């Protein structure tokens, strides 16, 4: 019945190719052959899935000049989730890359009807996000700030203004709202058909009623696609199978993990009101009530994200579950209550239907895009977390760029498939996690949020010990890491109550941990780091690494080198520390979430040589970070090896015994700029070494510390952080790390040309540290990341991370400053003078705070330096921090 409700556009009529296809089908229909047009034997690209994602990828690929494309759809085009999608294009997004995708989609859809002649139902209605609480309003203000600097009109309005914009809304419980006038409504199925039409005009072949059974892989590359109608050889395969993407990924011999899971999603359709609603009426999003409401054919369409989602298809596609996909009114009741509370006048409105349309969700609420780490040429675009129509255009564009150019035009790491590994692919994990993720769609996004489900998956051997000492945990790439230690007798707030945009309740706890790091010694368990060992029989390891890394790795044995792993544009693919263990073997430490990405990057680039081996030894070592001026004393007592600065200079690595345990890799780095050591301990010795360190450390005032303390330490010292501050679009030149690049190391390395060019011409953005001046830590909103930076009143960039510096007693924000031409908006070279000669302000949820910009860390912080001219100090502001 519902299929008839959405006007079905005859896109095929507008498409000459389709006309041919239909004609030929008619002519052969007497022979009862269902598929008259046979599949091509080969193609460059095969796209599986004819929803908004598949058609968008096809559209953009064909626009970029790739013509030999086949799009396969198991049913009819735009018949899956896309058909049932609510059709709201909303740019109010928290993550900036998502915001950009939504903005692009909006602009694309707007001109799509003109471009293709297919009616898309595009209607610029605007959207109003309501706030029932002050915290919600803060959250909206933060989004408003980022929308505004992107040039998307947006304003914070009062409840009265809401009432003027929408006649039906009950505004009595509102404190404010955000109005985005350019948000739009579309018929999602028709947008999809329009994209298909345009793609098909550009030469893309579209085959309906063709399902892909599996993807053939040879030597780690896609070679072809097996369908129920035969085989197609291809170089690229794009999995846009939506909620079936996981299953499809696992159907081949070489599984591709696409961690997503479907949940039922309900929305309500009503008959028109007595006085039908205007189609230009803005869409209402009431996150506190967990609902959205849009006008729909004179009536309303309203759905939401309930607290108790119903996950389905855990064990794969299942006919029984499909049949059971019915209206569940009891389940919808809380949302209906919220709707009637928001619009009490709708009581008398007649119900047309409750639509149950499964949506797919991912473990971290962000969509999945990119190339598989295990199978080259296997691309994925799925897991839209019910925002498919908002992201569709932008996501398709980025993926097409990725395929054609090797990398998209924006940093899409937050969406990259490689942020997940096999560990996020357990169906139980996904089922539990999406049950948490779906309600989060409407929950308040506060700083430092941790997922509660799917926890304690990867843990250090010290987990229980630390937990018993009051550790509070967060998770990164499935690994449990300590945030801070709650001292005995002190109680922190419950999880829900501790959600705040202001000063958190752990403030003093972390403060005392930081103090201990500065004055005595602390232990931080940093076992989650990704650790690789690369070795060879000859010089292959050194040669390969010299090519892949920007710094000079041909250092004496026992030295540790901080270096970037750069791409061709000189951007950071990874930021790591590499210790030369012997002439022919290297020990490489990278951020936790690099495990999949870095592995794939190196695998694809290292020569195929059986004499060169790379091993992931992450699980083999427990890492303890001994930070503080007394670290050297503690370690001296535990080992006979001399560790005085003369024997153990900074950035040095030595295998030695600690306590009874032998073979501990001790490195004189701490990732914070503080003096101390990292201990890489074979896991069976972890507890022993930890106990020894804690016992011996007692007289030096040792205590446990967590990552929040580490974060405060590294940010006040202006240390950049891969994944937050650094990404594939940041070069060492832009963040003052020229010293980590050996441009003249006697051989070529990846990104060298780009860096040379930058060195000559200057950089277009500069990593800068800001110290907030008139910010009251107790009373004002805390910075987080993504806050716009204003220079002399003009927008120049965004912050990437921030922390409170207990030493400076100020907030420190790190971020990139750009230089836009005042008239043309063109990007100009950023010079040191440009940075230094400006008055800066940081915008936190609409409130601007004065900030002092610094290009170098404050020397006053380095009171505990060990040796004045040490390498670590000369490179102090560019030392990598890995998390």
């Amino acid at each position, binding site marked *: 019945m519902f299929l008839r409700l959405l006007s079905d556009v005859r896109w095929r009529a507008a498409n000459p190719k389709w006309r041919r296809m239909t004609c030929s089908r008619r002519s052969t229909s007497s022979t009862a052959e269902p598929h008259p047009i046979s599949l091509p034997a080969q193609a460059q690209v095969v796209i599986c899935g004819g929803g908004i994602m598949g058609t968008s990828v096809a559209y953009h690929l064909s626009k970029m000049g790739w013509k030999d494309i086949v799009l396969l759809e198991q049913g009819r085009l735009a018949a899956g989730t896309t058909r049932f999608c609510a059709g709201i294009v909303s740019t109010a997004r928290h993550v900036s890359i998502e915001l950009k995708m939504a903005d692009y989609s909006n602009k694309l859809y707007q001109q799509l009807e003109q471009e293709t002649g297919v009616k898309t139902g595009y209607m610029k209605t605007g959207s109003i996000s309501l706030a029932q609480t002050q915290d919600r309003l803060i959250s909206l203000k933060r989004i408003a700030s980022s929308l505004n600097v992107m040039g998307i009109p947006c304003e914070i309005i009062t409840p009265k203004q809401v009432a003027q914009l929408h006649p039906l809304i009950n505004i009595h419980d509102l404190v404010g709202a955000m109005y985005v006038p350019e948000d739009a409504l579309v018929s999602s199925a028709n947008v999809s058909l329009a994209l298909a039409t345009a793609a098909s005009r550009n030469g893309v072949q579209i085959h309906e009623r063709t399902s892909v059974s599996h993807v053939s892989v040879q030597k780690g590359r896609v070679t072809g696609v097996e369908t129920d109608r035969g085989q197609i050889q291809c170089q690229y395969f794009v999995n846009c199978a939506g909620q079936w993407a996981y299953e499809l990924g696992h159907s081949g011999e070489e599984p591709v993990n696409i961690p997503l899971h479907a949940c039922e999603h309900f929305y309500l359709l009503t008959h028109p009101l007595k006085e039908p609603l205007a189609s230009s009426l803005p869409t209402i999003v009431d996150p506190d009530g967990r609902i959205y409401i849009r006008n729909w054919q004179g009536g309303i369409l309203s759905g939401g994200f309930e607290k108790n989602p119903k996950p389905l298809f855990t064990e794969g596609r299942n006919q029984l579950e499909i049949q059971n996909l019915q209206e569940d009114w009891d389940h919808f009741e809380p949302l209906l209550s919220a709707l009637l509370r928001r619009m009490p006048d709708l009581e008398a409105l*007649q*119900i047309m239907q409750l639509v149950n349309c499964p949506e797919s969700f991912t473990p971290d609420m962000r969509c999945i895009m990119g190339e598989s780490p295990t199978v080259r040429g296997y691309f994925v675009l799925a897991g839209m977390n019910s925002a498919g129509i908002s992201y569709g255009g932008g996501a398709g564009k980025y993926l097409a760029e990725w395929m054609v150019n090797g990398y998209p035009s924006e940093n899409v790491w937050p969406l990259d498939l490689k942020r997940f590994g096999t560990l996020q692919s357990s169906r139980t994990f996904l089922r539990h996690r999406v049950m948490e993720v779906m309600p989060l769609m409407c929950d308040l996004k506060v700083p430092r949020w941790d997922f509660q489900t799917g926890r304690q998956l990867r843990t250090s051997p010290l987990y229980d010990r630390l937990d018993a000492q009051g550790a509070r945990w967060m998770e990164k790439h499935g690994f449990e890491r300590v945030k801070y230690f709650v001292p005995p007798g002190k109680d922190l707030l419950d999880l829900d109550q501790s959600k705040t945009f202001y000063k958190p309740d752990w403030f003093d706890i972390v403060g005392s941990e930081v103090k201990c790091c500065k004055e005595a010694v602390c232990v931080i368990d940093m076992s989650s780091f990704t650790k690789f060992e690369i070795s060879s029989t000859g010089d292959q390891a050194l040669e390969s690494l010299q090519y892949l890394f920007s710094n000079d790795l041909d250092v004496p044995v026992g030295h540790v080198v901080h270096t970037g792993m750069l791409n061709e544009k000189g951007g950071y693919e990874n930021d790591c520390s590499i210790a030369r263990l012997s002439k022919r073997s290297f020990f490489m430490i990278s951020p936790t979430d690099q495990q999949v990405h870095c592995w794939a990057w190196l695998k694809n680039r290292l020569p195929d040589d059986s004499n060169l081996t790379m091993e992931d030894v992450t699980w083999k070592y427990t890492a303890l970070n001994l930070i503080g001026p007394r670290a050297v004393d503690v370690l001296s007592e535990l080992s006979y090896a001399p560790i005085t600065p003369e024997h153990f200079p900074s950035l040095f690595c030595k295998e030695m015994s600690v306590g009874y345990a032998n073979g501990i890799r001790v490195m004189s780095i701490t990732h914070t700029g503080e003096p101390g050591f990292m201990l890489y301990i074979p896991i069976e010795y972890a507890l022993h070494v930890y106990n020894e360190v804690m016992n011996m450390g007692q007289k030096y005032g040792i205590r446990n510390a967590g990552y929040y303390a580490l974060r405060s330490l590294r940010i006040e010292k202006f240390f950049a952080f891969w994944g937050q501050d650094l990404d594939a679009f940041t070069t060492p030149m832009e963040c003052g790390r020229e010293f980590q690049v050996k441009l003249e190391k006697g051989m070529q390395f990846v990104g060298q040309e780009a860096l040379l060019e930058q060195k000559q011409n200057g950089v277009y953005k500069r990593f800068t540290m800001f110290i907030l001046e008139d910010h009251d830590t107790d009373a004002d909103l805390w910075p987080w990341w993504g806050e716009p930076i204003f220079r002399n009143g003009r927008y120049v960039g965004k912050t990437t991370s921030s922390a409170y510096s207990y030493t400076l007693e100020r907030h420190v924000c790190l971020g990139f400053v750009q230089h836009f031409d005042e008239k043309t908006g063109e990007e100009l070279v950023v010079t040191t003078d440009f940075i230094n000669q400006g008055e800066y302000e940081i915008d936190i949820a609409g409130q601007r705070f004065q900030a002092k910009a610094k290009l170098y860390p404050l020397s006053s912080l380095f009171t505990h330096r060990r040796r004045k001219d040490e390498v670590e100090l000369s490179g102090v502001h560019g030392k990598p921090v890995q998390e």
Partner: protein
Amino acid sequence: MLAASCCDRRMCVCPGPRRIAIPVRSSRLPLLSDAMPAPAHLFPLIRNCEISRICSTVCYCHHKHLCCLSSHFAHSHFRYAPQKKFAALYRPKENFNHFIHARDYASTPQRFYLTPPQVNSILKANEYSFKVPEFDGKNVSSVLGFDSNQLPANAPIEDRRSAATCLQTRGMLLGVFDGHAGCACAQAVSERLFYYIAVSLLPHETLLEIENAVESGRALLPILQWHKHPNDYFSKEASKLYFNSLRTYWQELIDLNSGETTDVKEALINAFKRLDNDISLEAQVGDPNSFLNYLVLRVAFSGATACVAHVDGVDLHIANTGDSRAMLGVQEEDGSWSAVNLSYDHNAQNEHEVERVKMEHPKSEEKSLVKQDRLLGLLMPFRAFGDVKFKWSIELQKRVVESGPDQLNDNEYTKFIPPNYHTPPYLTAEPEVIYHKLRPQDKFLVLATDGLWETMHRQDVARIVGEYLTGVHHQQPIAVGGYKVTLGQMHGLLTERRARISSVFEDQNAATHLIRHAVGNNEFGTVDHERLSKMLSLPEELARMYRDDITIIVVQFNSHVIGACQNEEL
């Protein structure tokens, strides 16, 4: 004087200005909606809302048969209402309090309000559950377990409950006892009756063995395994006295040895009659211990009804004396629930019972035997334990009272002789026994005192317990289909369904769940927290006006075992 004040609209909740805002309770409404097939549920419900709005001006008064219909029956603490002048003398202090509190309550109507956890702690204070191991080493049990609970209205509560497994014979005994004129008789019956039944069921050899053991001072074979809530106490002082009476009983049984296998029905009847007889005798004989002497007199002068179930495999016997009730919950093939009565109330509403009483007495007394639906115009149940005032001759009553302790002598009530008292006994404890062979569709048995049956129809009881035991997923999903439904109507319906579900999840005990419904049900047949809260926060003196003590045992049967037993017999 006080009786008049009852209808002075202060104590009584007759129609008039409502002091306690409790919506109307009409058993017709849930029935109406029950009768409809599930999808159509929607519409009658909406209509029901309107009906209830119209009706809500009528005040609910559940005790109309006690205080509204007749100004004679002023005092609700008593099942049989003493006459006017007498009522004034009986426990005048309490009546006075009654009066004061009623006024207090009226002046601050919102004073008592309970939070959901408070409500739960009241409702759950007396709940008890017992799970029977499916195979206890000897027998496969047809009983899965039982849930029991009681909610007091009187202070102290006059209801009692018992549950025990017979150890020397097979089977399980469960019973509810509703006391009147105090709780002494109900307490005694709850402690003693099962022993009498168990002994009646024992084979000759076992009786001999037990007697020999007692004779030679050896350890006695345990007869019963009790399943008791901590609040269910046994009086230690009287145990010796009770034991002696019981021993006399089994000695007689040994002497009478008929050699026949014991018939359960006969055993139940004998046990009931014998216990009542012993209660009567003990009071006549008295006891040198003054405390015990007073106790046996209080037991004899108060009364108690009893409804006892004996379950052994597929054989279910219900022995009932009085107006408590046993009901079987049956699940029909379509999944719906129906109720089968397994007992007859012994009261004025039962024609056969009225007939029986009239048969047992001369025609001249026909008019005075049953008045205002009460035996001799006083007693509601027509069969009961104790109540020697309706059993002994006038001479015996006078003699015992005069020779009895002062407390008894001072009590006007015990001295009072019922009017038209010519040919005692008027009352018997002999039970009516109904046998039922359990079938796989018989899912549970509810034993409950009249406090439950006054507020709930058995059909509703069957449905609520049935839905509770099987889980709520049997609630039919709603489909709008082609109907014209507005958002508001749908919302109303969903809220109501939600309330029903949430009340189920709150309870781990079927009896508690039933009490929650009995006390808190609104016009939709769903639990209304506000109503529940008000009913439970009534001051002690007022509680009895709105509800009676409620005691419930829900026994769940094991359909697999019952089905297997059936097949064996085939």
